[in-house]
């Protein structure tokens, strides 16, 4: 998996580190880590519904923050979880622009083994960095 959960970054909540060869891959890893925090088996989330997410920000960290918030929003507002995401990221002038086709399905207790509800992405130790040619993000989720 391109992400791993960390034991000692947050006592009450869930923390993970995610990786990617590119920013697109990093964003995807983070998205999957969030879905995987809420349900045990990602392969059981079928790509039935499509939602398009378009975001812009001049700060890559805040772009990731907003993108992850978007996924949590769909979980509460439409009960949608995403398991398949096509992400395009480009720099337009000083801004990063993200376009994402997110596919997934409605949460179903009979089908998906539930773990814990993610309620917010926090800025606690939140970080995006390029290290030895690979992108890494550190995220603490409020659960």
């Amino acid at each position: 998996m391109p992400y791993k959960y960390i034991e000692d970054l947050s006592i009450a909540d869930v923390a993970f580190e995610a990786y990617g060869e590119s920013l697109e891959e990093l964003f995807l890893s983070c998205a999957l880590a969030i879905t995987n925090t809420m349900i045990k088996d990602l392969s059981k989330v079928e790509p039935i519904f499509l939602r398009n997410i378009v975001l812009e920000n001049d700060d890559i960290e805040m772009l990731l923050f907003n993108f992850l918030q978007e996924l949590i929003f769909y979980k509460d507002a439409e009960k949608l979880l995403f398991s398949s995401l096509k992400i395009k990221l480009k720099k337009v002038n000083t801004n990063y622009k993200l376009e994402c086709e997110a596919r997934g399905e409605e949460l179903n207790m009979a089908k998906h083994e539930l773990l814990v509800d993610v309620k917010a992405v926090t800025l606690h130790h939140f970080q995006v960095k390029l290290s030895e040619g690979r992108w890494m993000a550190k995220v603490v989720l409020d659960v």
Partner: protein
Amino acid sequence: MVIFGGDMSRYLSIIKKVGDYIWEIPTSFKEGMRVPGRIYASESLIKDMDEQVYDQITNVATLPGILKYAYCMPDGHSGYGFPIGGVAAMNVEENGVISPGGIGFDINCGMRLILTNLTYNDVKPKLKELVDMLFERVPAGVGSTGFVKITPSQFREVVEYGAKWCIERGYGWEEDLERTEEYGIMKGANSNKISDRAIQRGLNQIGTLGSGNHYLEIQWVKKENIFDEYIADKMGFFPDQIVVMFHCGSRGFGHQVATDYLQIFLNVMERKYRIKILDRELACAPFNSPEGQDYFEAMKCGINMSFANRQTILHRVREVFSKIFNSDPEKLGLRMVYDVAHNTAKLEEHCIDGVKRKVLVHRKGATRAFGPGREEVPDIYRDIGQPVIIGGSMETGSYLLLGTKRAEEETFGTTAHGSGRTMSRTKARKIWRGERLQQDMMRRGIYVRSVSYSGLAEEAGGAYKDIDEVINATHYAGISKKIIRFLPIGNIKG
């Protein structure tokens, strides 16, 4: 006295013990500290407190307008911006700030305690049936939705009128309001200050527990656990009685309000107000600024959503008891004791250096604990002090306490809120297995249902501090007075 040693020598060497249960971190510890930090704890609690608490509480001490001390309660552990258990009162007359990080994402996460006139022997034979039906009727876990179906414009009414909205629709009794902090309706909530996204997230969540550390519990009052018989009796308790306690908050709605304003504050804080902070989660704005006031009014909507959520759950609890015991909720004595808020900021009058002033008290994972006589305490409790309901882990026990004058004098009328975690969820999952834990608890007489076994493992009693140690610290420090300890016998978890 100065304490040395331990793994956290960097901190322990400068913490001064200034009272039997009070520890102080001087302003010299960190550049920019405007007031000292003060931690309420026993010696063993202070030694086990996680390191980030010290860093976070001293960050809080740098916020503009902070008065007297940056406090941390005995159940404190690291949070975002403020530690959990963090308390800060701000001078709103002179540029004091309001910070979502001092309130928490789950606005007005809180506790409600319900009496019954049933005894342990009445409930024991029906415990499984009771817990199973509560589990079915009070939705919990990821993506759960409540039975209250409303439109976005009705949701705006909910967040402006709180528990009162529920009572008007038949989800509760008039007397429930008097037994809720703020009488169940936080005045000044303005739904024009909340986003459509926040409404969309909360719309279907009224009457749901949520997950994480939220729960609903059936508890037993054993005679030996009543510490003040006179007060307990006066409040409607008796030996061998069964009571109901639950813990939940404002769900996705409160979280979205907090997230929305965290970003608004980050955008204006330095650029417009020249405020520099040490942690982005401490984003803030002057209380008396357009952004500060907008957040205050939006945050009050979160408070009301939470009151409405707990009120609707109470309605369901009464329905379930009525069905299982084949009697009216009134005849079963299902009366509320009180409802307390954990994550709030409120304008309150406090006496500072002999002068009464209006201050903004941030309580994050901390409970208001007003003593006798305060006008905020309802008539029924005004002569004894405000009830304080503190939930422990699902395996150990919970408490009822009363607020004190000393809390008003020392901690802006504040005490602890829970037992406080000592271990991360990820770590707890490696140590305990949910299925096994459920069976072990069953053998010990606690029937627990959860939508998630791993969620159950994360909430194991061993992942928390010793609740008795926490309660004794608040009791002997005098910031609340213990009345009853409750033992869990049935529990539903998200």
